């Protein structure tokens, strides 16, 4: 029971963290990113499409298709994020509106394209790409232990990928020149310009990284929650990720904590519903627990949080 909460909680928290880190990259460079929901959806769509194509050609080895689909999801998310970059950086449009529009556009576009592609090429008539079940691994040696056992039981391979990404992203953001430049853009873009660096280029890369990470997070959810890519992928993970990164004060390690809280709360309320054998109508109500938790926690713990100073501001070189 407790182990199940940990297993489900991690499977939810780690993809969420990857998406939230995507948001951190974009926002630390000064670009508000409310488009995470749409980006993860488009990433999942790209991954699903890639998987569907690959299994046509190599039907017996779905493991290759499985891993390649992650790369496709990252590329798809990064590509789709170019719209956000174009609107916010080049055309200096309002970043909130751009984000909202991308969310709506992604929903409509992926649903439409999935149905069309299924009909034209894959001789299906559904609005879903079906994926294989992701393999799960258990470290038998340790799985019997309390709590720790839950950490190493039924682990999805993408949880490992997510953890690796977290380490790489942390290093990139806090230990490299690019990370230093990126975070400076979010505080005082003039200083970056004065140092002879291009604010626009740094922000472009930051937004693309955020799109790529959101895409990876999206395909993870597609594998773990429904084993297909459908409009059901838009269940609010992108917005929950935004809440997590704000709650985590725009820093990776605290955001990890926030994602774990949300993931475990979600898994726990799920188990609670099963335990009490609730009616399915109450089930939906119980699943709002993590979101209510978000609200409560934000009220109490985000007072001293500080957003990047230049967040959401259009940077115009001529302005001093």
């Amino acid at each position, binding site marked *: 029971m407790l182990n199940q909460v940990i297993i489900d909680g991690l499977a939810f928290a780690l993809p969420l963290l990857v998406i939230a880190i995507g948001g951190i990259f974009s926002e630390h460079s000064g670009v508000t990113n409310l488009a995470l929901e749409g980006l993860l959806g488009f990433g999942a769509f790209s991954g699903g499409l890639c998987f569907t194509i690959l299994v046509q050609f190599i039907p017996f080895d779905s493991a290759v298709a499985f891993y390649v689909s992650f790369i496709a999801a990252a590329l798809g998310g990064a590509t789709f994020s170019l719209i956000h970059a174009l609107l916010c950086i080049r055309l200096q449009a309002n970043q909130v509106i751009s984000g909202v529009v991308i969310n709506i556009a992604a929903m409509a576009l992926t649903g439409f394209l999935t149905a069309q592609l299924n009909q034209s090429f894959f001789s299906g008539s559904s609005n879903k790409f079906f994926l294989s079940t992701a393999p799960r691994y258990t470290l038998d040696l340790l799985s019997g232990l309390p709590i720790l056992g839950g950490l190493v039981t039924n682990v999805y391979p993408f949880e490992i990928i997510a953890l690796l990404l977290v380490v790489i992203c942390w290093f990139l953001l806090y230990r490299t020149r690019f990370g230093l430049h990126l975070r400076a853009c979010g505080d005082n873009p003039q*200083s*970056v310009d004065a140092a*002879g660096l291009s604010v626009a280029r740094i922000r472009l890369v930051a937004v693309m990284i955020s799109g790529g990470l959101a895409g990876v997070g999206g395909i993870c959810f597609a594998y773990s929650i429904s084993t297909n890519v459908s409009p059901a992928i838009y269940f609010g993970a992108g917005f929950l990720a935004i809440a997590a990164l704000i709650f985590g004060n725009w820093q990776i390690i605290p955001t990890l904590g926030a994602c774990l809280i949300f993931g475990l709360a979600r898994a726990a309320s799920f188990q609670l519903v099963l335990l009490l054998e609730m009616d399915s109508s109450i089930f939906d109500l119980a699943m709002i627990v993590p979101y209510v938790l978000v609200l409560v926690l934000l009220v109490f713990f985000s007072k001293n949080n500080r957003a990047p100073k230049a967040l959401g501001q259009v940077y115009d070189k001529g302005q001093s």
Partner: protein
Amino acid sequence: MSETILELKHISKRFPGVIANNDISLEIQRGEIFAFLGENGAGKSTLASIIFGMYSPDAGEIILRGQAVQINSPARAVELDIGMVHQHFKLVSNYSVTENIILGREPIKRLLGIIPAIDYKKARAQVQELIDRYDFDLSADDLIEDLNVSSQQRVEILKMLYRDAEILIFDEPTAMLTPQEIDSLLAIIRRLREAGKTIILITHKLEEIKLVADRCAIMSRGHLIDVYDVQTTSTQLMANRMVGRQLSFQLDKAPAHFGPAVLELKELSVIDAFKVKRLDKASFTVHAGEVFALAGVAGNGQIQLADALAGLVQHSGQIILNGQDISQASVRKRIQSGLAYIPEDRHGVGLFLDFDVTENLISKQYYRPPFAHWAFLQKKTSQRYAELLIVRYDVRCAQGPATIVRSMSGGNQQKLIIARELDTHADLVIFVQPTRGLDIGATLSIRQRIIDERNSGKAVLLISLELEEVLTVADNIAVIFNGNLTKVTPAAEISLAELGEYMMGVRQ
């Protein structure tokens, strides 16, 4: 010694509607402190921006170390060993001193032989070494947001030194500093010259040029008047050349004729949000036709007093304006009873920076005729009113009434506030630091304006940190120290030195 490092030849630059630089040619020697002196808008900042590659000139060429160069970006300027400290610092507030200095030029180490990471240890050592060499009283690990303005400025200087800049440009470096900080900055500038740097200093403050500069180019309305040797040229001459007319430091001040009391304060006290008593039972009277000045070092309660009068902070005690007790009145009620307020914080309290000139000018009267008819604003009337005030108060704004206030110079923003306040024809006008940060021309015209108000029978309360201003403009002076009025005297009966002693609390 006299080797030319930088030569400007026939540089011209125009912006829509203004000629910022008109055919300017001059030479700067290696290792000298060369000053650009001029009023706000004389074109000196534009010229410096051209040297630093922020603007490209419309005509003319720049010769650096004997070679013609194109400086088309600040990055190029840095490559050519030119550095600039801007008036508005370009620092990342949540970064350390080290991180700010190395930004864009980080030392790199390779982890596991391949992965590039910033070598913070080496960076820190390099920065600390620079700090120690120039004796800057900073720590490489300090966070920028914890530093005061003067320390942040030193970080900007370090940024240039870290990049081995040889020509250092300072754009109005003393505008935000206290007198002590100015002294230490000027000392630093001298030290930099001793270290072999060439310094370009842009300022409108003559005293500073007299103190440090070797030579000085005086600019007026986009033209270079001439280059003077500072040691052998008198201050008066330079001041005259700067404003382009014979300047009288004397104000036209007729003897005072006091009328009836306009403002009476009775035991006014202010306690701030931290429960600290900022003003303790201040009582005084200001008459019609009188300039009553409140002198004091910053932070001794004078701002609280002004805010209390304007109704911006809670207070106890009585405020009587024209015989009417307004102690509990709302801000609008106070304005209607005849109180005009020119606040210290122009940007925060005085103006709506992103609104245009018209909107700012009617912002205290917009709700009543002729500016509003029922609920509707009368745009045409307001605009005509704005045009009138622009002329009457000599406010220079590029697009007339539609100019966005943020784009105007500080002096003109101040004139705008003064126009709005004086045109309400209030009986009491409160001026707080009315000439802070303004050039000589604007300063004198504002001081004259204060005296004109007094001559026309208004009561004026002047709150200023500048002794000279207080002594020349005021009829009566009260000194405020630690929230107490320590001395009230006619201006004619106190000397500058005595006033200083009261302000510092040496005398009670």
